[in-house]
């Protein structure tokens, strides 16, 4: 029996609930007797708390309690455990649930009010008086390592948290021999996350059993469990963490936050269920953000347009804390050398502390920045040599016959990185063909006749996906013949319920409607890692496949006893096991499940173990590498600098597709995220670390009226590294998108314009660049 559902664009099982208003997000959950929390946050980017006067707040209507950190002393003290310890980071550089001494960015939580309604809690929070002595603010990444720079954290000697390095090849020799060496400095901007659902958490505590239960809008419920259990000195088995429907994650919801700890502590203190829903202004101030990075790079190239080497340094703004260790900057190192067969590489990244909100991975982590700098360098070399941009790439790409290709860099676990499969040149040629690059000159001339500037942009990338170590899944057939998949992997809109059900349904010969997926509840499945780094299809998907195949074998074995037929002669279809060629000799999966559920005093058939179920953990020991090329056309109004993206084409290869509809949705959303980064989204702070763009009036998210349609074409190079042949698809849209749009704008302005070294770029800036170009 071939695969029936794998590869099909089946409609999502999630949708019937979600389109009728029956979704269940954290804010929709109301435990009986719940009380509501509001936080008082620092209005200064750096300072020392002198006093917190809560006397008035405690007397306000509806107020149950007001807490500062010292009130929690019976249950916890000090900073939260480091989530992802890194040998180079002496820490923990993590938050206390409520700041007790030094505050290090605007928005850091200092006190907490519990009241019978959120409105009352906020009323009382306003009456708390904070006396904070200001300290000098480190808000300027470019100068944060200067000897006289203000220190972001007064306990440290300077603002350098750590320096990460990667290198391979004969760097000095490659640069000495190269025909051309070009040097450029690039800046990449810190945007926000902006899942439409903000964060939210509910906690209950049973003092008799010392059991903590939480619902949290998280990508990592199991990391929340691990982190908080360790912090509170509880056994993990006494902490249950659930992620219900989550309204988008995109990275920041993978971190563990001080508010999660504070809400849990409030539940421990009061014995009542406590709920906190982040409001959007808090999201701007206290949810981790993207990345401010400054890259100083040199590229070595040959006369014939081959990229030979890249070297240089990155300043990475990690904000005031490192809640997620060094993961974000580390993803930058892991993204080199991109699709290019470089002979030599030498990159170092200084992780810098500032008095801004911490940065952690947001859609693509540091991969979009590395794609931006590498693609800009490729375009720079093309400009310098007067060669077409695509030729530089064709001559420099890793070729399909070099796969698997050992890049020379190392993965996070220290193992050598090798790309598994993919034809990068084919993706490039495909996207150029689909956007009709040959006809571009004519389209440009036509636009010029209307007074507009047309530009063609190009960007390619390789993306490591399927990050280890594992996810797991249990597949169980119920006594009614339903297939129940349980997994730790949380979903924030990626449609896991559907894709995991497709895999299980195929393996067990049942219809999609007969499969239920239960996810992200530590009370139902023992272990999980996180929905990050485009890893769930590889890890959880493969686990479902392995577990479902085990269940299939067990079902066939049991049926062979009951039907007295050889296992090889059996087939499963529509939930029925039957003898091939004699389909009336049959038994349902429901009956098989019942017979393995046991009857008092009776033996199980054939001495088979009870429970028609199996659990598997797929351990991803080597990354899988998706790749793609994007091309877009922009039309620029030379008067206003207004940029309109008129076409956007993606050639994408994420191995075998479980559900093309869902993959395309992931790519589209990802591209739009990258377009936002290129043109609209600006998280601006002044030199005192005060955020200036903290509402959607000032921080622009992509809107329907501005966004193009995205055309997608797939190549499929199956990964040999997992049983499904899949690679991740969650971030591949975002990674090259900003680079592609900036490349198109530069092309529209023309060769007389400045080489573009940053994003986002404003329409004002574009107009200025058009005015100052040399023609």
């Amino acid at each position: 029996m071939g695969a029936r559902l794998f590869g099909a664009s089946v409609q999502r099982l999630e949708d019937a609930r979600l389109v009728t208003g029956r979704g269940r997000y954290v804010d929709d959950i109301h435990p009986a007797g719940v009380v509501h929390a509001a936080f008082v946050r620092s209005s200064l980017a750096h300072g020392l708390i002198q006093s917190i006067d809560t006397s008035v707040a405690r007397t306000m209507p509806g107020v149950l309690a007001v807490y500062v950190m010292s009130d929690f002393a019976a249950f916890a003290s000090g900073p939260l455990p480091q989530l992802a310890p890194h040998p180079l980071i002496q820490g923990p550089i993590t938050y206390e649930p409520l700041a007790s001494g030094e505050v290090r960015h605007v928005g850091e939580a200092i006190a907490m009010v519990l009241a019978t309604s959120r409105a009352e809690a906020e009323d009382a929070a306003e009456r708390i008086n904070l006396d904070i002595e200001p300290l000098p603010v480190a808000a300027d990444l470019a100068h944060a390592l200067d000897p006289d720079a203000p220190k972001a954290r007064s306990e440290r000697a300077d603002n350098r948290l750590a320096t990460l390095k990667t290198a391979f090849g004969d760097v000095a020799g490659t640069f000495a021999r190269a025909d051309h060496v070009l040097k450029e400095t690039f800046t990449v901007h810190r945007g926000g996350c902006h899942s439409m659902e903000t964060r939210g958490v509910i906690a209950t505590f049973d003092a008799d059993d010392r059991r903590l239960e939480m619902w949290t809008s998280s990508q990592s419920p199991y990391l929340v469990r691990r982190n908080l259990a360790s912090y509170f000195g509880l056994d993990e088995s006494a902490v249950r963490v659930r992620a219900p429907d989550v309204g988008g994650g995109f990275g920041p919801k993978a971190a563990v936050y001080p508010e999660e700890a504070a809400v849990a502590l409030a539940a421990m203190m009061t014995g009542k269920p406590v709920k906190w829903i982040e409001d959007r202004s808090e999201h701007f101030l206290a949810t981790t953000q993207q990345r401010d990075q400054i890259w100083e790079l040199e590229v070595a190239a040959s006369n014939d347009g081959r990229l030979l080497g890249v070297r240089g340094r990155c300043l990475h703004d990690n904000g005031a804390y490192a809640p997620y260790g060094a993961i974000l900057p580390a993803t930058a190192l892991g993204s080199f050398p991109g699709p290019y067969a470089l002979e030599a590489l030498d990159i170092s990244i200084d992780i810098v502390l500032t008095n801004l909100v911490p940065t952690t991975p947001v859609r693509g982590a540091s991969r979009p920045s590395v794609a931006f700098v590498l693609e800009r360098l490729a375009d720079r070399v093309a400009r310098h040599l007067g060669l077409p941009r695509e030729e530089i790439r064709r001559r420099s790409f890793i070729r399909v016959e070099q796969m698997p290709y050992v890049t020379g860099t190392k993965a996070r676990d220290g193992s050598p990185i090798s790309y598994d499969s993919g034809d990068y040149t084919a993706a490039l040629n495909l996207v150029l063909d689909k956007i009709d690059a040959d006809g571009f000159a004519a389209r440009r001339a036509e636009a010029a006749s209307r007074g507009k500037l047309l530009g063609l942009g190009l960007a390619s990338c390789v993306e490591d996906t399927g990050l280890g170590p594992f996810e797991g899944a249990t597949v169980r057939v119920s006594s009614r013949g339903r297939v129940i998949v349980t997994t730790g992997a949380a979903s924030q809109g990626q449609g896991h319920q559907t894709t995991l059900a497709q895999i299980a349904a195929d393996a067990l010969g049942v219809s999609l409607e007969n499969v239920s997926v239960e996810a992200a509840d530590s009370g139902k499945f023992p272990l999980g890692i996180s929905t990050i780094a485009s890893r769930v299809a590889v890890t959880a998907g493969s686990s479902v496949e392995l577990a479902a195949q085990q269940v299939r074998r067990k079902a066939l074995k049991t049926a062979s006893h009951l039907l007295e037929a050889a296992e090889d002669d059996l087939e499963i279809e529509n939930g029925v096991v039957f003898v091939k060629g004699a389909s009336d000799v049959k038994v349902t999966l429901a009956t098989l499940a019942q017979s393995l559920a046991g009857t008092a005093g009776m033996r199980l058939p054939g001495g088979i173990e009870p429970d028609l179920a199996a659990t598997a953990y797929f351990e991803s020991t080597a990354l899988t590498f998706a790749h793609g090329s994007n091309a877009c056309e922009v039309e620029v109004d030379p008067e206003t600098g207004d940029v309109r993206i008129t076409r956007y084409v993606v050639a994408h290869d994420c191995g075998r597709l479980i559900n093309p509809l869902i993959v395309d949705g992931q790519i589209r959303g990802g591209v739009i995220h990258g377009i936002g980064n290129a043109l609209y989204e600006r998280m601006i702070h002044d030199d005192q670390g005060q955020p200036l763009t903290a509402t959607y009036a000032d921080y622009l998210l992509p809107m329907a009226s501005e966004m193009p349609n995205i055309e997608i074409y797939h190549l499929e190079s199956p990964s040999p590294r997992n049983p499904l042949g899949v690679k991740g698809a969650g971030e591949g849209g975002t990674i090259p998108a900003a680079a592609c749009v900036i490349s198109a704008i530069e092309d529209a302005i023309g060769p007389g314009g400045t080489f573009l070294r940053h994003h986002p770029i404003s329409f004002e800036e574009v107009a200025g660049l058009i005015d100052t170009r040399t023609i």
Partner: protein
Amino acid sequence: MSDVQTYPVTVTVNGKKIQRFVESRTLLIHFLREELNLTGSHIGCETSHCGACTVEIDGTSVKSCTMFAVQANGAVVNTVEGLANSDGTLHALQEGFRQMHGLQCGFCTPGMLMRAKVLLSENPDPTEEEIRHGIAGNLCRCTGYQNIVKAIQYAAAKLNGRTYQEAAE
């Protein structure tokens, strides 16, 4: 708290007449979600930018975080919970969103659906551009909007007695 002044509000929500006493400062979105337990309408910003809280009031689209519950006195309010057809089948828009993969996390979806409902009542056969402008006040971080546009086109076709030709993308 018992000493807080409350005011009577009478509204017809999803066809049912409802009377409650509310504080003057209670926003309509909080009234719907907390008082009536209609949690389909969501809160994404509370500053009237995101549209997650969009409901239909007397035939027009309203972001229910921009209005006090008392201001809705006497109004007819429809939310996503009342969108399905009276026989329980999905409304053409709900069907369209599902068919065209017009949602991912689903958080913006109820607001999008209710906005699209009014859009189609005002302009039963909109062009793609008219749809894109019509939903510009509703933000979605997941989908990139393309399939939301298609979902609305699907519904427009169905409500006009045509079959929508294009496949989901």
